[in-house]
């Protein structure tokens, strides 16, 4: 018995060592490249900005106070959240049927469909956004088409929130579909057959059987989409135009135009914290049985 217990302890110790060996490098890497810079940035946010000295060492919350007491910055945060929510909703509404159809497809072209879905990701986001710019611009292709078809001089899509939403959706949709496709493929199709055998129409079967089972995956796709939307940089900058502000471009503006590192740091933390808080809040309002375990 003693020997057996000793062997078991030895095995446990080996397992622990092995786990530490496997997790250690990644943990050290994450600490060095993410946690340490974040801590440094957090410290910067408490410093004071001076136009002549740039960043002056201090312990002050004035940068945070500036953000939360200025309606301009709160409005930018609100715009950012609104865009991210609309983008997430649009991606789910379009992505769920596409992913489900792809998951259940037995066509020999299925891999081609998946490739077609992934293909836009091969092109850089900025290059793709440049294409949208040409499409939306004043006198661009959409304007030319609407003028020819309906006699409307300009649709005026350029530099609008709608243009930004379309641009971000075009980037996020493939991620959403690919995530959801894997989720739907993990759901046994015989469950749908069973529902059908009991008289459920396909839509009802999807709504009552498939979707609840897929909900943890849908939540993950939504979170991914929401975070990508909140942190969008190039798309709002290029498609929103100079008069449209979201948090990430504003952060860069503060850093590059004013050299105000403390306030740019605050914008970064507010963006990070609001993304995290809203993600957690969304998780909390979803019934427990639907959450990923």
């Amino acid at each position, binding site marked *: 018995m003693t020997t057996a217990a000793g062997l078991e302890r030895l095995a446990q110790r080996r397992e622990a060592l092995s786990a530490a060996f496997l997790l250690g490098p990644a943990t050290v890497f994450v600490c060095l490249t993410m946690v340490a810079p974040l801590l440094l940035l957090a410290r910067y946010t408490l410093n004071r900005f001076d136009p002549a000295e740039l960043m002056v060492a201090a312990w002050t919350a004035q940068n945070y106070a500036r953000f939360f007491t200025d309606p301009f910055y709160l409005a930018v945060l609100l715009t950012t959240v609104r865009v991210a929510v609309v983008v997430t909703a649009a991606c789910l509404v379009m992505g769920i049927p596409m992913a489900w159809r792809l998951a259940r497809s037995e066509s020999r072209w299925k891999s081609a469909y998946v490739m077609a879905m992934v293909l836009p990701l091969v092109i*850089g986001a900025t290059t793709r956004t440049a294409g949208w710019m040409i499409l939306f611009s004043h006198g661009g292709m959409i304007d030319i088409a609407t003028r020819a078809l309906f006699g409307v001089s300009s649709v005026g899509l350029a530099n609008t929130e709608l243009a930004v939403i379309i641009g971000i959706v075009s980037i996020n949709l493939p991620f959403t579909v690919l995530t959801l496709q894997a989720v739907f493929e993990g759901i046994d199709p015989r469950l749908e057959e069973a529902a059908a055998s009991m008289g459920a129409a396909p839509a009802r079967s999807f709504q009552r059987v498939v979707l609840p089972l897929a909900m943890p995956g849908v939540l993950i796709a939504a979170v991914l989409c929401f975070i990508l939307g909140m942190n969008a940089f*190039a798309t709002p900058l290029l498609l929103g135009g100079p008069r449209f502000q979201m948090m990430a471009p504003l952060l860069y503006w503060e850093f590059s135009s004013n050299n105000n590192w403390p306030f740019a740091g605050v914008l970064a933390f507010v963006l990070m914290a609001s993304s995290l808080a809203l993600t957690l809040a969304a998780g909390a309002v979803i019934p427990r049985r639907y959450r990923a375990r």
Partner: protein
Amino acid sequence: MGTNRLTTLPSRRSVLAVGGALAATPLLGHVARAEDRCVVGTWGGDYARLLRENIDDPILKPKGMEVVQAVGDEAPRLAQLVAQKPLPRGALDIACVGATTGYVAADKDLLETIDPAKVPNLKNIIPLLHSGNFMPDKFVPHIYSAQGIAYNPTTVKDPPQSWSDLLDPRWKGKVGALAGSGMWIMQGAALAKGGSPTAWDAAKDFLTKLNDQGLHLYAQTDDMAPGFKSGEIEVGIIWLARTVMWQNADFPVAGLVPKEGAIVYVSGMVMPKNAPDKDAAYAYMNALLEPAAQQDFAAHMGYLPTVGNAQLTGKVAEQLTLPADAKLVQSDYPEAAKMQAEMNDWWLKNIMRKT
């Protein structure tokens, strides 16, 4: 600086360059220690290419000097200088910056005072480009351009001649400007409406009215060209150098200096106090002021030479020579540096945000 990066919103390339430049800092420190190497922190694009073609290859390479370009944006370059101040040896021998940033760096005691004996061409800097004890003593001006009024000569036969003319109802909704040039536009407007580039209240009043008349803002300098082409705007407030570049690309645009005068943008180079190879930096600074190099920058980028002995001839002279009575004014750099954040903030909240 092909699109005058200081005055435009960031492109993806410039944003990536921020990370790249900072990440490469330790490597550059190593490179700079090698003999006969000059590490130049610069903008990318046309500016970096022209530096290679006009300074690095024809002047310095034959002398056995290798030039390494550290391409990045101006803000991270200043950040790099600040962060490396305590080090005995920094990463850069030369940093390319705009004059306001040059002033900030000089004010923070980051810069070496240039020894005129080691930069003989310094004596040729034109009088306009002397400012306080920082230009050209610590900041060597390389190129400059005036902020002017651009228009399409094929459609506009009677262009506005002054800032005041821009408020004429016939230009309502037809004036464009660069969103990233807010601080410069404010100084131009201040000069025009208040007689001094620091007449901030006069500038705010004028720009508010101009914005209410439907001012079009463009994120990037080159975004303005399609605006002209599509008829979205007929007039633009822009650096005259850009109009020359567009002319060289066969785009019909002309530029003029407003009656009230024009603020000038000066781009130059500074030597950090902890530059690893100061002799190389001195050689580089002297080379950038060589007349041939200055003339080629003028021909390709449309910026004016900063030295008096770089005469422009032919088409370049026709394009770039400003009227003899053109009033050109430099920023009040100490005041501009002090007010930059506040004025950028005002521009962001009152002009950019308001439609």
